[in-house]
């Protein structure tokens, strides 16, 4: 940074110029509306300025209780996601076979989470798949109470968030070199000890990043609690939606949003003081460790070391016992059980996704288990219905529009952040990822109140812009990770050969970062294609995108047609995903050479 400070003010501005479009869009469509909306929370119903809305918020048991419920559900889900996701990410990062799991893990990630929620309704019902299977096997006599409770909600939420947790941890683990483990064993650490004292601490930033992302996204969840929970699982977002749909009390909704923001920001701040933003953004911040962070990590290290000693002692005893009964432990001892565990977790991820396929062919007019075969009626009535066709088309167009804007605006920003000497990079990066780390609900309500005043409610344009802002962080993170692995000497070589900067960009840089841009484009598209909260509000409950139409259908119609639509989307997205994988494999050969 000190070098940047010594150059002139104008030069610095020029260096930062590529960031301008992204920052302007963020200010206009995110920060501006959100701040303006939050400010309205200090205006009471009668127009007076003060804390009335907050007094009401904390004075009513409804809000205090539902905030508690929201935190409890998010906390339980985060814990389960980290615990179940760690072994999967570990296996994927450390073994060749494990890395091929990625397609299976990603598959549920790219299928609508609404769809997955319905699968859980049928799986967990009193006469659902799990109960009827257990009864027919004679394992239980009376159905277990699996639905309409905390268990059902947390199961479905964990299922929804687990892929994200795995991918976040994986990206950190992939950067832990195998030589650390070898060094540890050279110094005499046994398997468990080497893992606990070396690998686990090194992977902690990834674990924390996963926990952060999962927790914050969970704060905004309302679909699972609404459809799978009992009255005790009512979350604050649901109350806000109910409240806004009977009385348009913006000030009060604003107060609830401020509270949600405060919780999210507190968690982000805690995270940043412990780990920095590196694992989320992939960007070196270069900050020195805070003393809090140091003491916590030292404590954790000591704890892990102690555990390692204990475990390796136990491990030795188990090995000895196994040897005694004639089982010789293979190298890497625990691989077998680990693979089994990971297999079970991956099955947990996949079963609900594949599950709706048979249900979509049922002749019953309700989603029921077992399905009664066989009809294509649901495919015909749903996929040909004008409302569904227009919802699908609108979602495709909105997704494409949002992805184009996000990629066009985000790519130059990523360039500036990686290549240029821009002052305050960490702060800028934190600013750009704001839409990703704050609950979507806040943007949804803020934009709804803004759009209602300027007549943009229900317009496709308003939705495209909103989704584009949400996708900018995805683009910046994806493209900058490609840029960081990109060897700049290739550009320099082209310049030396006489190419001017535009030509260098067009003939060398663009083709090389193309894969990254396409991935960013596809991430943005899918994030828009699957987005519900903002669509629900910004459309004013009027025009429908596909997820919104599915949500309406889910709460108003509940027919096997939903399973048919889900299956069609699953097939469609899988085809896209496979095409991308194929494309990346083709383009990937050059990318891998560059990395070396």
């Amino acid at each position: 940074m000190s070098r940047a400070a010594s150059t002139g003010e104008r030069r610095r501005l020029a260096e930062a110029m590529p960031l301008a479009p992204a920052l302007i869009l963020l200010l206009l469509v995110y920060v501006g509306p959100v701040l303006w909306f939050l400010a309205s929370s200090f205006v009471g119903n009668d127009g007076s300025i003060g804390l009335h809305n907050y007094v009401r918020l904390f004075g009513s048991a409804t809000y205090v209780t539902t905030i508690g419920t929201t935190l409890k559900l998010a906390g339980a889900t985060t814990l389960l996601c980290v615990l179940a996701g760690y072994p999967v990410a570990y296996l994927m990062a450390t073994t060749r076979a494990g890395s091929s799991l990625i397609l299976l893990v990603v598959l549920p990630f790219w299928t609508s989470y609404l769809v997955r929620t319905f699968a859980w309704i049928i799986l967990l019902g009193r006469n659902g798949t799990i109960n009827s299977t257990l009864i027919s096997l004679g394992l239980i006599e009376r159905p277990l109470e699996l639905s309409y409770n905390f268990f059902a909600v947390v199961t479905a939420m964990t299922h929804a968030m687990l892929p994200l947790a795995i991918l976040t941890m994986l990206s950190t683990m992939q950067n832990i070199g195998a030589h650390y483990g070898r060094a540890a064993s050279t110094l005499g650490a046994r398997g468990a000890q080497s893992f606990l004292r070396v690998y686990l601490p090194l992977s902690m930033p990834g674990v924390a990043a996963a926990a952060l992302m999962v927790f914050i996204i969970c704060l905004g969840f309302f679909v699972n609690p609404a459809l799978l929970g009992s009255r005790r699982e009512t979350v604050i977002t649901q109350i806000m939606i109910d409240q806004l749909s009977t009385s348009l009390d913006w000030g009060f909704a604003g107060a609830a949003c401020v509270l949600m923001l405060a919780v999210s920001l507190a968690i982000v701040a805690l995270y940043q003081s412990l780990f920095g933003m590196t694992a989320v953004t992939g960007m070196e911040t270069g900050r020195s460790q805070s003393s809090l962070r140091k003491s916590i990590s030292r404590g954790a290290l000591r704890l892990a070391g102690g555990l390692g000693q204990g475990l390796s002692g136990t491990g030795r005893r188990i090995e000895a016992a196994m040897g005694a009964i004639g089982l010789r432990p293979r190298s890497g001892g625990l691989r077998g059980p680990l693979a089994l565990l990971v297999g079970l977790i991956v099955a947990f991820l996949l079963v609900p996704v594949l599950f709706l396929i048979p249900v979509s062919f049922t002749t019953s007019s309700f989603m029921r288990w077992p399905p009664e075969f066989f009809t294509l009626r649901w495919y015909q009535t749903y996929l040909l219905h004008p409302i569904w066709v227009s919802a699908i088309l609108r979602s495709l167009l909105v997704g494409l529009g949002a992805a184009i804007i996000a990629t066009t605006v985000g790519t130059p920003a990523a360039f500036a952040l990686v290549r240029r000497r821009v002052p305050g990079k960490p702060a800028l990066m934190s600013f750009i990822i704001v839409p990703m780390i704050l609950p979507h609900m806040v943007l949804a309500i803020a934009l709804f109140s803004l759009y209602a005043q300027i007549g943009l409610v229900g317009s496709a344009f308003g939705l495209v812009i909103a989704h584009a802002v949400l996708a900018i962080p995805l683009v910046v993170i994806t493209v900058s990770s490609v840029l960081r692995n990109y060897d700049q000497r290739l550009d320099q070589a082209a310049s030396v050969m006489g190419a001017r900067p535009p030509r260098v960009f067009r003939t060398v840089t663009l083709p090389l970062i193309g894969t990254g841009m396409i991935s960013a484009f596809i991430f943005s598209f899918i994030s828009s294609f699957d987005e519900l909260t903002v669509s629900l509000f910004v459309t004013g409950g009027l025009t429908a995108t596909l997820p919104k139409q599915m949500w309406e259908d889910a709460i108003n119609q509940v027919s096997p047609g939903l399973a048919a639509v889900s299956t069609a989307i699953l097939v469609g997205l899988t085809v896209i995903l496979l095409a991308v994988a194929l494309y990346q494999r083709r383009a990937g050969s050059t990318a891998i050479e560059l990395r070396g």
Partner: protein
Amino acid sequence: MEKTKDRFEFGRRNLIKGLAAGSLVPLASPFIGRALAAERLVVRDPGGVVNDAATKAFYKPFSQETGIEVVGVTSQLEPLSQIRTIVDSKSYLWDVALLSLQAQEILGKAGYLDEIDTSAPGIVDILPDAKSKWGVCMQIYATIFAYNTKTYGENGPQSWEDVFDLKKFPGRRALRKYPIDTLESAAMADGIGVKDVYPLDLDRAFKKLDEVKPGVNLWWSNGAQSSQAAASQEVDIVSTYNGRVQAAIDDGAPYKIVWNQGIWAPDGYAIPKGNPKAKIAHDFLKFCARPDRQAEYSKAVPYSPPNPKAFEFIDKARIDLMPTAPGRVEKMVMENGAYWAANLEKVAARFNEWVVK
């Protein structure tokens, strides 16, 4: 499938070029939408069986007679805020909305709905109880309960008192997560007669609700959820609209409807104020008041027609499934729209607080 794959293999340049052209479409689509809207009427309904029946009885026949396309759009129950947003922002995304009588009352008095010509043919015949200055009612439904005959045989609960008695009738229950209907049934469960339900004794009703609370597994917020719970036999007793549980019964679910102490109410179409297409919307409302149309609607979903002349077109077996079949209305209570128009907001806050506690 093959086609999608090919497109992705065209290469980067074509892809980017194609996408750049595609970006113009979403930007232009609001205008396309507006141009098409001239010959289209968008009607909000609560989905499920209501949407199916309205499509058969009102939407399609109206299109055939006038050439104007009618599209049913589903939204959550009681969309008060959406109507206010539509009128305040002048973005008329719904031209007509199906609303409860008290929603018509609340919105109409606040100036959000067009007044109806109540002397127009068809509309003039509608029952006095189902008449409103701001809407044309096309269905009378009843909130009743039904029990699973596999669980209780023929000796299931016969009154709200039985429904709220967890000892006498153990089993899973589904109730509506909303003060309207749920508080009325609690009041009757506590021994208040059908004639004395209003004004509601809230303290008594909430105290009675405390008793049934541990036995309620599903608090549904939309009718279809209750249909689904009955169809998959998720609960033993379900309190819902008669048409919603009938849909499950028709699909083979073993439930029996109990009409005793039911709560009946009319619903109807209303027009958000200031709509440039108001004339077509008013024509549509007159169309829906016609006896033959209301009869057609009642054939698709067992709700009673508010226009008594419609009964000439309906056979006796069908009338048996309706709330107003002979001998039923006397044992029921009519939902008091004026009470709820005045008290809904306050009572809803108390109900929400109670339900999450």
